[in-house]
């Protein structure tokens, strides 16, 4: 199948609602659009509605109301065409531990109408691609978490899908396996595959996604490129700690040209001077020069940029579990 037209939406969701028993709305009036050829990161904590949305988009769950189209096809009325266009790697790779990687790939090939010899060839190709050639004839029960995830990704690619859905693909993986999977996702995207990725890891969204959607309580709370979202929260902070608190006012005066100097908060740390500056890390050298010219002795200078977690906190009022510390550069 040829890659989707970049101008056409690969995923188009309008007013989507999914209600479960007891009136619980896992997805509550969601609108979103994923362009062909992009990596869209869907970020949210457990229970935010990410998996429910993925299950609807992959035809495994019916929406209560609203509409969703994937690769141009309606997920309810044209489910079979949607299934032909998508690859799916669901949360916690559900792979039969009693089968070998190669057997699973060949079975998946048959499910996607590949002939025996074609399925066999494709299985070998994909095992090679995800680095499982040696392990391909071993039962999956003996695979590590990272190997299972890579096999799951290979299974999703058997029929060369236009749109790839990855539901929390690196949850529980060690950093090396996570980085390997990210490389593979980027490479697939470079080849033209649209990727819809759910994650609860800020770093994953930041590293991989062209655009990020933040979901909480079943609603899309914010959407944009990571940089745009972070800029919405505020400018980076240049934080100068002076040796002598008596020099703090002189430091504030010296740094005024670099940006907006924050007043010292009552009860705050008197030796700490904070300047909001769009220049971010680039503000460090001129700051040091300006302080030096005024004879202000400095203990440290650092820059803190807003993170996606700050964005998340700003739009949802809570922080993601295990979120990283603010990104900082220090001198």
């Amino acid at each position, binding site marked *: 199948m040829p890659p989707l037209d970049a101008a056409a939406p690969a995923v188009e969701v309008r007013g989507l609602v999914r209600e479960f028993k007891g009136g619980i709305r896992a997805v509550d009036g969601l609108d979103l659009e994923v362009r062909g050829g992009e990596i869209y990161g869907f970020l949210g904590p457990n229970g935010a509605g990410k998996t429910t949305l993925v299950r609807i988009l992959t035809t*495994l*769950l*019916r929406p209560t109301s609203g509409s969703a189209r994937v690769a141009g096809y309606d997920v309810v009325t044209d489910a079979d065409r949607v*299934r032909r266009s*998508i690859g*799916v790697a669901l949360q916690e790779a*559900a792979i039969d531990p009693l089968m070998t990687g190669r057997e699973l790939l060949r*079975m*998946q090939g048959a*499910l996607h109408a590949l002939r025996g010899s074609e399925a066999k060839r494709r299985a070998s190709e994909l095992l090679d691609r995800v680095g499982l050639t040696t392990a391909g004839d071993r039962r999956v029960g003996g695979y590590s978490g990272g190997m299972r995830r890579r096999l799951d990704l290979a299974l999703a690619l058997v029929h060369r899908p236009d749109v790839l859905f990855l539901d929390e693909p690196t949850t529980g993986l060690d950093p090396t396996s996570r980085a390997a999977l990210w490389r593979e996702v980027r490479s697939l995207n470079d080849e033209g595959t649209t990727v819809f990725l759910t994650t609860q890891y800020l770093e994953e969204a930041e590293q991989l996604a062209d655009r990020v959607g933040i979901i909480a309580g079943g609603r899309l709370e914010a959407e944009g490129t990571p940089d745009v979202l972070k800029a919405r929260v505020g400018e980076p902070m240049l934080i100068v700690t002076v040796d002598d608190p008596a020099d703090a006012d002189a430091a504030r005066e010296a740094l005024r040209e670099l940006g907006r100097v924050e007043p010292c908060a009552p009860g705050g740390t008197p030796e700490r001077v904070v300047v909001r500056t769009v220049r971010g890390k680039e503000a460090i050298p001129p700051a040091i020069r300006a302080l030096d010219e005024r004879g202000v002795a400095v203990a440290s200078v650092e820059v803190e940029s807003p993170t996606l977690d700050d964005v998340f906190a700003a739009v949802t009022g809570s922080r993601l579990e295990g979120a990283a510390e603010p990104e900082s550069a220090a001198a």
Partner: protein
Amino acid sequence: MSLEPRVIAALGRRALSVQFRRAQLLMPTFVLPLMLLAVIASGTSSAQDLEGFPAVGSYLSFVLPGTIIQGALLAGLTSGIALASDIESGFFDRLLAAPVRRVSLVLGRLAGTLGLSVLQTAFFLLVALPFGARYPGGVAGLAGTVVLAAVTAVGIGGIAAAIALRTGSLSLMQSIFPFVFVLLFTAPAFFPRELLTPVLADLAVFNPLTYVVEASRGLLAGDAELGSPIAGLGASLGLAIATTALAVFALAERLRTT
């Protein structure tokens, strides 16, 4: 509606190969029926001296169809257990996300059950040979018995699949295991219908396994007096068609309500 033979074959192959890699499913399907056969053949053989017991060359050959049908019941049940396990683990979602007809998912599973029953029945027939079982019905009788058992296994597999699809519960599937024996013992599996108590004999009329087990007995002995092959085939086919339809309906309901 066209079938998808490649998909059904791939799913059937997978169901069968996984069955042989799962010891907890092999035990009830291959070992348990033989253990029961050993107990019955050695412990109740004097039953053939009872008045009304048909004249048979070998008591073992008479009770063997009961074992074969017990095997078919267990093959069908384990098929439902494996399906429930796929549902619980999420593997079934992988199949649902593929562009295949939903009916193929049911037929693929039952194709595995059919294959398992063929192997199982051949195994029982072979194992019984050195212990004195004889098959005067010849190759045709043996082949007919294998077919009857396989179709019956599909029939039981259909019920089990329907329950698995409706409940999605592995523990529930495991808990219905004892009901297999209720079905088995309300059919003349190890005794002729004439020697059952009046209540059991009345119940046996409504149990399709009655006709299957009697037909197998007739086929193996080459004696239609012991059971009509046509009645057996009708009962097993009817069961298989009805329960497969039930399983397909259960899957449609599952998809509609999720």
